[in-house]
């Protein structure tokens, strides 16, 4: 039982990171219908930027997180304006390929600037393990839980009450109608990319603090695909839940079935779920007319 709880809790801790990345995927998909295959790479880039910030300015954890998120939001905006906006009107597939191209570029750029060796992201956060029942957690993993709660409440309030949030929901619902109602859809797209990059920044900093920053971090982006697919590509909150579920399933299958199962458990799970629910658990089915 202790073993089970231990796997469960550490799985949830990993799952929170998948959740943050998955929410970033969902944020962009909801508004623009594009899956950003460079999400993992953006996370990696931002986490290296955090590494530089931590190394030069000696920020504490929270100021550094805030600064990193701000920089990441700017990066998201730049990417949207430079690369994604010109692709408006092209097939979705082409835009997706642009994000794949961006991913290839970012992977190389990171190694060019920072080198290929893994480095610890030092923020003065204690690395002493906190024991919760049978499981041990790093403080950063507890912060991840708190951050996730804060982000979820914040996003909920944003989508529910703020003018811009409602405009984003309207755009996700029906672009043409949103345009006719005077919503600046282009600005909504840019905002989605910015918010998504901000979420990637949180994930990047957390991974950097819990593990280290290394040029293979982008694979976490790939591993987060099952999270967002499980929740439904257009459901931001579903992605958060999906992330936690995938993290737990990965850890349990690794613990009980065998070594290496971690790598594929999420993908096997989504294959099964998609056979039953082709739009994920919380996704909205497309109703198509010919």
């Amino acid at each position, binding site marked *: 039982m202790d073993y089970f709880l231990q796997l469960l809790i550490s799985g949830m801790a990993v799952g929170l990171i998948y959740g943050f990345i998955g929410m970033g995927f969902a944020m962009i998909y909801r508004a623009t219908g594009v899956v950003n295959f460079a999400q993992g790479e953006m996370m990696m880039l931002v986490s290296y930027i955090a590494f530089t910030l931590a190394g030069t300015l000696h920020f504490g954890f929270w100021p550094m997180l805030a600064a990193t998120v701000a920089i990441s939001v700017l990066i998201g905006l730049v990417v949207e304006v430079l690369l994604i906006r010109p692709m408006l009107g092209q097939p979705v597939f082409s835009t997706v390929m642009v994000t794949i191209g961006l991913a290839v570029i970012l992977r190389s750029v990171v190694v060019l600037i920072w080198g290929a060796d893994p480095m610890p992201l030092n923020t003065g956060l204690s690395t002493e393990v906190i024991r919760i029942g049978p499981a041990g957690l790093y403080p950063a993993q507890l912060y991840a839980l708190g951050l996730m709660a804060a982000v979820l409440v914040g996003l909920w309030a944003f989508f529910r009450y703020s003018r811009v949030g409602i405009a984003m929901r309207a755009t996700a619902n029906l672009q043409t109608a949103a345009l006719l109602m005077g919503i600046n859809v282009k600005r909504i797209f840019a905002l989605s990319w910015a918010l998504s990059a901000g979420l990637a920044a949180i994930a990047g900093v957390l991974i950097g603090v819990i593990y280290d920053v290394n040029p293979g971090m982008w694979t976490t982006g790939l591993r987060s695909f099952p999270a967002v697919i499980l929740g439904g590509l257009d459901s931001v909150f579903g992605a958060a839940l999906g992330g936690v579920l995938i993290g737990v399933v990965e850890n349990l299958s690794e613990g009980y079935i065998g070594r290496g199962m971690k790598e594929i458990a999420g993908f096997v799970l*989504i294959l099964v779920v998609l056979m039953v629910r082709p739009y994920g658990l919380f996704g909205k089915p497309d109703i198509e007319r010919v």
Partner: protein
Amino acid sequence: MRSGNFKQNYRELLALTDSVAVVFWSCVLVAFLLAAPLVLPTYYVSVLLLLLITAVGVLGLNLLTGTTGLISLGHSGFLAVGAYTAGIVAGKLGWSMLPAILVGGLSAAIAGVIVGIPSLRLKGLYLAITTMAFAVIINHLILNGGTLTGGSEGLTVPQPSLFGRPLGAERGYYYVVLAFLVVFTFITLNILRSRIGRAFLAIREHDIAAKAMGVNLIRYKLLAFMISAFYTGIAGGLLAFYTRYLNVDSFSLLISIEALSMLIVGGLGTVAGALLGTAFIVLLNEGLGFVFGMIGASLGGAGSTAAYEIKGVIYGLAIVLFLRFEPDGLVGRWRDIKHYWTNWPFRF
């Protein structure tokens, strides 16, 4: 008065090509490829050989993604299935080359049908990510296949031989691969002008509309997956006998992405585009590798990693810029140039 391009009967409409120039230049291309090993140095022949093998696989991906409109990120999986099956039946069971490659293709086709079943309910990016899941699972199975697949140690494949006679990599085997490519190009062209090809196109334009017109979606989507996976499996088998050593690392997701970028650079949905795109990306890769290899060598160890990464940046930029400025690919650009010259002084 005869003007422009018009057809008077169905046979003309269904002909492979109505242009003498196309036939002539295709023959010139094949003649060049036949003569290449005799005149080019071995290194260039082996690049060309890799290009031809890649082209077979990209033709397959084109049938699925370009013609039928089903996006697949799982073709690295089919390639791995084909390569490993061919490698295992040749290495462990002692089959000769041709049956081994064919069995590789068939097993990939079976895998294609299995992957195709979820595709009946999934669309667009959901499908893309599901096929990606398949590729990840295949790699995991290969890695944990024990002595059958060699796991992380890899698998050695015997030297290719035809009718009991061993083939040299650059001379004999090159012609085998070329024959495969020519045959598969013809098969593709013939599929595209048949009932099956038209069904594929209808599904790409709108699958529900196609269904309403009487296209059996289950049958044709699975068929598209099967044919496409078969091509890629054959390419895998050819690759196995080319590299003669298989390792799971060489079948990463990047292969699928690279193949898609070849399609896009060439022009989605056309055979000429698939071939052109393959040639462009493979030669770009080789060219960049050559140039930056020289720069890197002159800079020493650290310089060579930097050169490798700069090569990555340029490769990514090439994809992005092509999509941005040439969404129809090289084939689209060629068409525009042709129209410009035939219709001059009019714009269109």
